[in-house]
Each structure stands twice: as structure tokens, then as C-alpha cells.
């Protein structure tokens, strides 16, 4: 517990500085409202159900797009590594689209699918897929030949080898790709909701901001920051658990 406290003490310091800056009016209070007011605005938002309703909408879009990206991107990367023709066909596409800022696709997905959930899910799916694909591809390619041979000599079929040897070999890189995708999902989610949406946390931030409710706006911004942090933390635990075999050391 004290270790935890020590680790996040800079955060605490930042909060104190914030409050001091507000107290001594070093910046205008609209730019930086009191943290206490932000907290009470947060409680109000929670009580009214506003926060949960919007969070649920965001979670659904973000979760669906992200999961779709993990499944499709992961499978695609593995098959690309396994089957050369697909690799030759798709690698140029991956190379071209990888550096494209995915936020540029927001208007495109809106034109295709409208203002609702579908356009956001598609955006997040497209934006998150490539890091997963690349992770799965590079990871699969790192599979040791002799492992595959070993499995084959013990009677494993090709499909089984894909599952039992290639997937676990690819796992470290794949999981790193998914971690990147997770961060991207948050960025794309909030940005797209900020630009065009009727609900969602990003939309709530935009709405509260244009309404002049800065305390409430800050409270939602901080909520999003915390959710992103928590998601990454949980993901790291998950990653460590899956890769326990790798980090296992004697004693």
C-alpha cells in the first residue's frame, strides 16, 4: 500500500499544485476550476445517471471495435505469416495504411455508416486492427522452425500447429500490438464522439465544454484519463499472466 502511494505520489503532487494554482488565482478559474468543485460535479453527473449512460455507450462502441480488431487483426496477421500469397497481397496495403492518422477516417466512416454506433465501431476497428495484425504477423514469423518440426513429429496437424505452436510463439508480440490497439481505441473513441455523436463520454466532454460547465467537463476528462489508465493496467496484468511461462525464473 505504501509502495503504491510512493509510486503515484507525483500524481498527488500534481493535484496539490492544481489546487494551489486555483487558490492563489494563478490562472483564470474557468481554465482551471477547483478540484473540489470538479469532484462534486463528478458526483452530480454520477447521481443523474448521465455519466453511466454515456460511459455505457462508449464502452459498447470501444469494446466492440476493439474486440473485432483483436480477432480479425490477429487472425489476419497469423494467416499472412503462414500463407505467402496473402502476405504478398496485403503487406503493401498494411504499409500504406499503417502511418495514416486514423482520425482522418472519421468523416469517411460517417459517410458510410451515419452518425450512430456503427460508424464509431468501424473507425475503432479499422484504426486498431493494424497494430494487432503487425504484432501477430511478426510474432508468427518468429516461430522457431524446430518447434514446428517437433510438433509435427508428434503427430500434430497443420491447424493444430497454428494453435499450439505458432499462436503461443506469436503471443509476446501479439499482446504488445494489442496494447497499442487498446490505447488507440481510447483516442479514436473519444475523438470521434467529440466530433460527431449524440452520446458517449467524448460527446459529453464536448457538450459540457460548449455549455460552460467546466467543472463537469474536467470531471469527465479525468474520468476518461482514469479509465484509459485502468484499462492499460488491467491489460498488463492479463499480459503477465498469459506470459507467465516466459517470465518464470528459478527460485
Amino acid at each position: 500500500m505504501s509502495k503504491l502511494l510512493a509510486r503515484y505520489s507525483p500524481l498527488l503532487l500534481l493535484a496539490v499544485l492544481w489546487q494551489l494554482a486555483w487558490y492563489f488565482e494563478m490562472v483564470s478559474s474557468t481554465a482551471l476550476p477547483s478540484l473540489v468543485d470538479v469532484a462534486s460535479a463528478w458526483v452530480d453527473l454520477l447521481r443523474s445517471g448521465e455519466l453511466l449512460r454515456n460511459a455505457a455507450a462508449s464502452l459498447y462502441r470501444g469494446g466492440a471495435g476493439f474486440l473485432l480488431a483483436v480477432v480479425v487483426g490477429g487472425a489476419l496477421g497469423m494467416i499472412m505469416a503462414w500463407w505467402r500469397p496473402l502476405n504478398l497481397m496485403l503487406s503493401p496495403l498494411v504499409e500504406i495504411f499503417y502511418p495514416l492518422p486514423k482520425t482522418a477516417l472519421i468523416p469517411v466512416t460517417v459517410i458510410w455508416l451515419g452518425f450512430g454506433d456503427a460508424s464509431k465501431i468501424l473507425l475503432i476497428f479499422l484504426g486498431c486492427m493494424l497494430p494487432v495484425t503487425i504484432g501477430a504477423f511478426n510474432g508468427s514469423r518468429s516461430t522457431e522452425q524446430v518447434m514446428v518440426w517437433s510438433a509435427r513429429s508428434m503427430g500434430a496437424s497443420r491447424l493444430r500447429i497454428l494453435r499450439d505452436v505458432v499462436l503461443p510463439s506469436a503471443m509476446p508480440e501479439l499482446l504488445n500490438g494489442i496494447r497499442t490497439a487498446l490505447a488507440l481505441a481510447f483516442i479514436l473513441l473519444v475523438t470521434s464522439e467529440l466530433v460527431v455523436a449524440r452520446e458517449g463520454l467524448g460527446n459529453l466532454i464536448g457538450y459540457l465544454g460548449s455549455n460552460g460547465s467546466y467543472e463537469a467537463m474536467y470531471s469527465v476528462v479525468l474520468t476518461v484519463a482514469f479509465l484509459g489508465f485502468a484499462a492499460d493496467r488491467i491489460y498488463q496484468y492479463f499480459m503477465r499472466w498469459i506470459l507467465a511461462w516466459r517470465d518464470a525464473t528459478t527460485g
Partner: protein
Amino acid sequence: MTEENAQIVVHGVSQVYRPPAGREVLALSDVSLEVQGREFIALLGPSGCGKSTLLYLIGGFLPTQQGSIRVDGKPVSGPGPDRGIVFQDFALFPWKTVRANVLYGLERMDLSRHERERRAQSFIDMVGLGGFEDSYPSQLSGGMKQRAAIARTLAIDPTILLMDEPFGALDSQTRRLMQSELLSIWQRTPKTVIFVTHDVQEAVFLAGRVAVMSARPGCIKAIVETQFDKADPHLLKSPDFVNKVDEIWNLVRDEAIVAQTARHP
């Protein structure tokens, strides 16, 4: 020995490695070898002469480029559980525990779950890894990994055992124990063993014939009969045995010198 009754027939096999970058390597040149069913043959030769390559070809992991390889009369077209292999660098699955590694091959055999587990355990015990069933390979020493790999291959009870320096990472005591375990398995169950080693004494002790390979590009330079009474406790000191080791050692040394000068001309 005629072709009809040999279980493994390697005929005029040459093998070239063509790495995507770098120059081609002729690893094997016109190798011919016949191995009888239930025979225990050892393969000796300087480092880089193609011993592993020959095992990979017989195992069906590499396609035969030139010449032919037949096992039980049929051309080898791929790996199969009839030919178990212990790889030089173990090739354990690092994401599986020792037990799961040993169980892996057993899972595709027609055995009850109970029988599979019993069998896995008995081979883990045999190689002296009892107590390490739940360890991951990264938690094992080199010698322990090697023993786990041996247990995994022996557990599926292949009729042909391809072993690539299987005791190379073991200390001399463990090595002795494993040698006698292997011999007793070979005597109990019908098995053909091709055993790669750098240890001449080990080769003469274990095998009925020793094939000495030339420096790269490898071919079979000599085949020496090494039939001894393995039950004799003083075998390793008997003059016949010592002379045989000497004779083969001289053959191997000549090739090692050739290999050495090829590297530093």
C-alpha cells in the same frame, strides 16, 4: 546387408542449404547408409559435417533434394510419430510445463487420460525430473531441459528413434545413467536408434555399429562394427573395447583436422 531387409535406406543423398542471404552450403554429399530394424547405430563426425541434416532428412523435416530415403520400404514424405526425434537444442515448448510437454505427443495417441498421465509421469521419473513436472523450461538447467526432451520423445514410443547429441548437456554421472536407461529401453522394446554423438566411447558403448562421417560436405567415411557385451561391468576397461575406441577416435580425429584446416586454410 541387402536393401530388402534394411528398415532405413539412405541412398546417394546430397543436400544443399540455400540461405536467403549468404552463399550456398553443401552439407551432405552422396550419403548412403542402411540401418536394420532394431539396430542401434551411432553417427560420429566433426562439427558441421551434416549429422543433424541427415537426421532431419530421415525424420522428413527437410525434403530430399537428391537421392532417396526409404523407411520401411516407403519413401519419406514428411515427419510422423513412427520416427521420434530428440533435437540437438531440445525444442521444448517454452510455454508448456515439463508435464505438458511430455503429454503433448501422448495426446494424439489412442490412450485414456489416466494412461497418458501415468505414462508421462513414468518417463519424467525415469529421466530424474520428478518434482519438476510443473516447471517451465526457462526454469530448468540445460541438462534438465535435455532430459525433458528425451522423456517427451521416449513417451510416444516411436519405432525409430533419431537422437541428436541427446546427452551432450549432461554431466558424466547423469550421462551414464541415461545411457543405461536408453540401452534397457532399446532392449525391452523393438526400436531402431540412430544416435549422433561427439563422444567416441559413448558411441562404441551404446551402438552395434558406428558410422564415421567425413568433414563437410559430409559423407559416410567408414562404418565400424562395435558389438560388445554391454552387461559386462568391466567393459569400458577391456582391451578390445579400448582398442575399438582408439581405432574410431583416429578416424574421427583425421576428419576433425580436415574440418579445422578447411576453416583456417
